[in-house]
């Protein structure tokens, strides 16, 4: 349990370190990145379930974003791998239920289930890596402010900002509670009984609520009126951010409606 806590801790800390970079992608307005990431997810999931080749041009997006942002490839791969259980589970049942032979590869019959499994896995990797890149290239406060500028209610944006700030704090609290339990429970240190968990979670909850009350008093003392104001509001530049959105949406549109791999094949064989 302690190991899982450390992993979660490290992920959050490493994410905020990577997101504070200053590359071209980091400097983009978060609204532009949100819109492009959403457009990418819609494009990747809009292909038929047996499409494999036509998903390939979409790999240009994560490649280009990694190149332009200078984010470490290992970071993107490791975080994408965190979703591996989801990615593999998503399509795992298809080979069992769809046994219709689609193509024969050198005499080896390939069923529709395996083709759709591969397609689901590829589109998962694409979408997950694009979200990973969004979080690795945008500071979380700007990420959530961007949502507010896109029309998300301000109370919800404030909630996201608060949540994000308190996660590390309360995770530290849990680490201390879990460590205290582990040190006193010998061979049963890796798991808490169902009944004990009620008291442990209850104590954590009461400590959290006390903290919320202290935070509220501190905020009131500083003139809090329900809005969290930032010193540097977001600025959407049409030349930079608008162009970023237009270029990528045009690219996704082209990938969706033009069979680029087929055209490349035709060009390669000279037809």
């Amino acid at each position, binding site marked *: 349990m302690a190991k899982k806590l450390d992993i979660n801790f490290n992920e959050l800390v490493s994410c905020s370190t990577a997101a504070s970079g200053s590359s071209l992608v980091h400097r983009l307005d978060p609204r532009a990145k949100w819109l492009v990431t959403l457009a990418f997810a819609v494009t990747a999931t809009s292909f038929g379930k047996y499409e494999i080749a036509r998903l390939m041009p979409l*790999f240009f997006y994560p490649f280009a974003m990694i190149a332009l942002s200078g984010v470490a490839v290992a970071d993107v791969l490791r975080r994408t791998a965190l979703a591996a259980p989801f990615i593999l589970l998503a399509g795992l049942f298809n080979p069992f239920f769809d046994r219709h032979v689609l193509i024969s590869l050198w005499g080896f019959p390939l069923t529709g289930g395996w083709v759709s499994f591969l397609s689901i896995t590829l589109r998962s990797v694409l979408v997950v890596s694009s979200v990973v890149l969004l979080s690795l290239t945008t500071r979380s406060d700007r990420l959530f402010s961007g949502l507010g500028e896109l029309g998300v209610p301000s109370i919800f944006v404030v*909630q996201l900002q608060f949540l994000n700030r308190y996660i590390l704090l309360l995770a530290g609290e849990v680490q201390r509670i879990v460590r205290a339990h582990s040190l006193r429970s010998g061979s049963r240190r890796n798991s808490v009984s169902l009944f004990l968990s009620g008291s442990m979670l209850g104590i954590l909850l009461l400590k959290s609520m006390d903290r919320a009350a202290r935070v*509220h008093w501190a905020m009131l003392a500083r003139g809090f009126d329900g809005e969290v104001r930032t010193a540097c509001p977001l600025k959407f530049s049409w030349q930079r951010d608008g162009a970023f959105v237009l270029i990528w949406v045009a690219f996704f549109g082209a990938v969706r409606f033009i069979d680029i791999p087929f055209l490349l094949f035709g060009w390669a064989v000279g037809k």
Partner: protein
Amino acid sequence: MHMADALLSPAVGGTMWAVTAGITAYSAKKLKDSPDDSRVPLMGVLGAFIFAAQMINFSIPVTGSSGHLGGGMILAILLGPYAAFLVLASVLIVQALFFADGGILALGCNIFNMAFFPCFFAYPFIYRKIAGQNPTYKKILIGTTLSAVIALQLGAFSVVIETMASGISELPFNTFVLLMQPIHLAIGIVEGFVTAAVVSFVWKERPEVLEASSNDMPLQRGLPLKKVLAGFVVAALFTGGILSWFASSYPDGLEWSMARTAGVEELEAPEGGAHGFLAGLQEKLAFLPDYGFRQSGTVTLERPDTETRWPAVDPGTTVSGFVGGGLTLLLAGAAGLLLSRTAGRCK
């Protein structure tokens, strides 16, 4: 219960985004109308509490496995439905963004499945009826267990419906339901017990916390339900309509899966209604004929036989797919490398 993007069609994902955005906006408005702003830091801290609480694994008796708290019912009991919905939605967004739990297109589905049912169904109609006023240990235990079980059952069934409607997964409806519901029955019972333990602990230590929340912001009587529902329907139709035009050639997975596995003919698409309308719209607007519905004399959907339903695959297409796909990937990688060098030089 987190759904992944890859199993969703844009039409289903977009529709659930619209529905969830509507509920979020409605909950935010309800909270904004409330004069008490002490809830804001409390909501933030309780969201973080759910994260932290999920790190404590407890052992499940008899089974030898372990589990963690989901948290939906605790939040609803402590904060009321509107604030709890926003807190759960924010937790799911942070999980999707920073922990790759669930996807970005699937956010609407995930928020609806895991936050709507505990906050707007199980809490007001089950928990409050049983343990809302004058709670006792017994009432808290029955109330939390029953509401956790029902919220999880509805959420799990919703996952099945959304997956089937997307048509990407091959899992038959019956198998999927039989897989999801019993697992979530077990999870619901454990979740109910843990929630009861935590709520009882808080009730014993700080009874005023529960009293304050039970008197605060219940679902209002005379809620303009018709207006809210009408808004959802319009938003859902609009989004679903636009996105299904953009979507894959297999938009009708439920019907298709049902027919393939059980031969249930009565699930044939209706001629009229929203389905027929969207089908007609897609037929008229489709850019590529092979991604549209097949033509027949009227606007009805006509499915070909199983044998002809598969994409036409000939060796030529396969080779072009392999070679073309490989070439494209190489080209994308080379372009990425080139960009990386250019960006490096610009620094």
